[in-house]
């Protein structure tokens, strides 16, 4: 079913490389004007999916529908999706302006119209003065911006980015993420970005698509994926989550860290369950107050400034904990502590 807002419909796409299954039956609907991040470890098929969308790979089965039109068989240069590559792939034998103008030249846009469009984009990326420089003379951040401007110059229906920020150092990457997001909103272009960096994906995406082994594990808004991971892989991949075994007790409640906890569970009885608890959702109190919570021993403790990173041994499980007040409460390695877990922040799934 196609609704007006579904810009791109990825319909049952699979891809085999010889005997290797790179993508298995991918279904995804991408809203007009949204920013989608394909996130996953290397080899999960995210780049292959992007290249199929761009037309650089052909899917083994399945269809691609753009505004309801089947583009599966369309060659990449007819699709005209602007793409930013991992290596940026700026044309080294052209100046900045020639790079940005190339797609316009191919579309037969000449003379004044072309110059104006190039100037407009140079202004948007805040580099109006470097038009005639060779691209080899640019800094990392400038090259990045030129690559983005070159792709956006042709007003692409889809804007595709393949780990475009991975070559930048951490600080520059941070500011480029913000800039990229602002540009995307300014142009209102439907954007698909591939990354293995969960922080980057959270910063940029309207919708986060987590992939593993050629399949989509979860697809939702970043906050939803973070708070309610669909399975243990997603929980583990997005930020430091503790994965602990959870036995199921009768009445739908589960057993966590040796204590029963009232979390409604849809799983049938006697399935082996796992629970994910994020490091920042665990609270530590000095032991003693017998409030019924689990008791653990601090194995490792490090003051990181805004927070303290700890490893706590509770009933044989090593839990990572991020605390804002552990140091001030006089805790130290070897201290006994009460470990309090907020049931609202626990996700439960069948063990993989």
């Amino acid at each position: 079913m196609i609704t007006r807002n579904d810009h791109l419909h990825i319909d049952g796409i699979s891809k085999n490389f010889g005997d290797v299954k790179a993508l298995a039956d991918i279904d995804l609907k991408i809203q007009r004007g949204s920013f989608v991040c394909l996130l996953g470890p290397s080899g999960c098929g995210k780049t292959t999916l992007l290249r199929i969308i761009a037309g650089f790979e052909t899917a083994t089965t399945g269809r691609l529908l753009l505004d309801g039109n089947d583009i599966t068989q369309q060659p990449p240069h007819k699709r005209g999706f602007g793409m930013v590559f991992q290596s940026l792939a700026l044309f080294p034998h052209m100046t900045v302006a020639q790079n940005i103008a190339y797609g316009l030249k191919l579309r037969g846009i000449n003379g004044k119209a072309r110059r104006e469009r190039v100037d407009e984009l140079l202004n948007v990326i805040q580099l109006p003065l470097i038009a005639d420089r060779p691209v080899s003379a640019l800094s990392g951040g400038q090259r990045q911006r030129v690559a983005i401007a070159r792709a956006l110059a042709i007003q692409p229906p889809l804007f595709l980015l393949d780990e475009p920020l991975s070559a930048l150092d951490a600080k520059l990457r941070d500011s480029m993420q913000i800039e990229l997001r602002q540009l995307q909103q300014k142009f209102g272009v439907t954007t698909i970005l591939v990354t293995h960096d969960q922080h980057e994906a959270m910063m940029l995406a309207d919708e986060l698509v987590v992939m593993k082994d050629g399949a989509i594990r979860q697809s939702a808004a970043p906050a939803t994926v973070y708070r309610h991971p669909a399975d243990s892989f997603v929980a583990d991949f997005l930020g430091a989550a503790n994965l602990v075994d959870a036995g199921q007790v009768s009445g739908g409640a589960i057993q966590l860290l040796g204590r029963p906890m009232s979390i409604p569970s849809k799983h049938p009885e006697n399935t082996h369950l796992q629970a994910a608890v994020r490091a920042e959702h665990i609270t530590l109190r000095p032991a003693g107050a017998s409030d019924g919570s689990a008791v653990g021993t601090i194995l490792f403790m490090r003051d990181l400034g805004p927070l303290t990173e700890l490893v706590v041994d509770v009933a044989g499980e090593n839990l990572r904990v991020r605390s804002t007040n552990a140091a001030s409460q006089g805790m130290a390695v070897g201290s006994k502590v009460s470990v309090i877990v907020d049931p609202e922040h626990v996700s439960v799934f069948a063990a993989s």
Partner: protein
Amino acid sequence: MSIGLSRKRALAFSLPALLAITPFLGACFYIFRFSISAETGTIQGFSIRPYLDLMTPFFGRSVWLTVKLAFIATLIAMVLAVPLAFVLTSLRSPLARRCLTVTILLPLILNLLVQAYGWILLLGPSGVLNTTLRGLGIIDRPLFLLFNETGVLLGLVQTSLPLAVFPIVSSVRGLSQEHLEAASSLGASQWQTLRDITLPLLRPGLLGAASIVFAFNASAFAVPLLLGGRRVQMLGVAIRDMISPLFNWSGAAAAGMILIGITLFVLVFTSWLVRITSRNVRD
């Protein structure tokens, strides 16, 4: 890559070059066909007579001389090429590097006649060397360095040196500086580093270069013709003599096949050697 290249386009792109090399392949086949011809002057029927007729002491000596000279020249070229490659890769000044590159490369492509003139002027009976030595009173009668094996050997080393140096230069560039520094930090002297680290790491490149140099030298024609005269009958010259005064075409073709066989054997053998030894390194 699936957009990269369809099979059809790859073929279309390769076709012109394949067409350009077809005459060469045709010539190879033609020689082979002639070498099993029953007639010495034309291609007619099949016979192994041309090969049997070559089983003479004279031809045997020619084969032996060819292999011997090519081998010695290869050995000398390699001993000179490795230091040259080291120097070439450590030169910092682009000008010095360029001068050295030109000096080494020139003998391979410069008109062989010009170089032969140079050697004749240098080593001939009234050449630079003999005049100087006689002038100094070291010798009474001129040394005969030309139109014998020494002259041919010098010419072979000179013309094949670039074929050895440049592949070794690429291997040396692939060598990690850290390996050398690691060896040095463990207390290895420069000679020990050369023996234990550098040469073993360069071995595939060295073997590859040596095999090409050997094939080039064994096939040499102009150098033995110009510097060896009639007395140094390397295979190239012997084959020419079969057709020029003797008109024994099928014999020349058979001798050619034997020469090709020798060079191919050496090339295949060394590439096998490289495969075997590099497998040991990886395990």
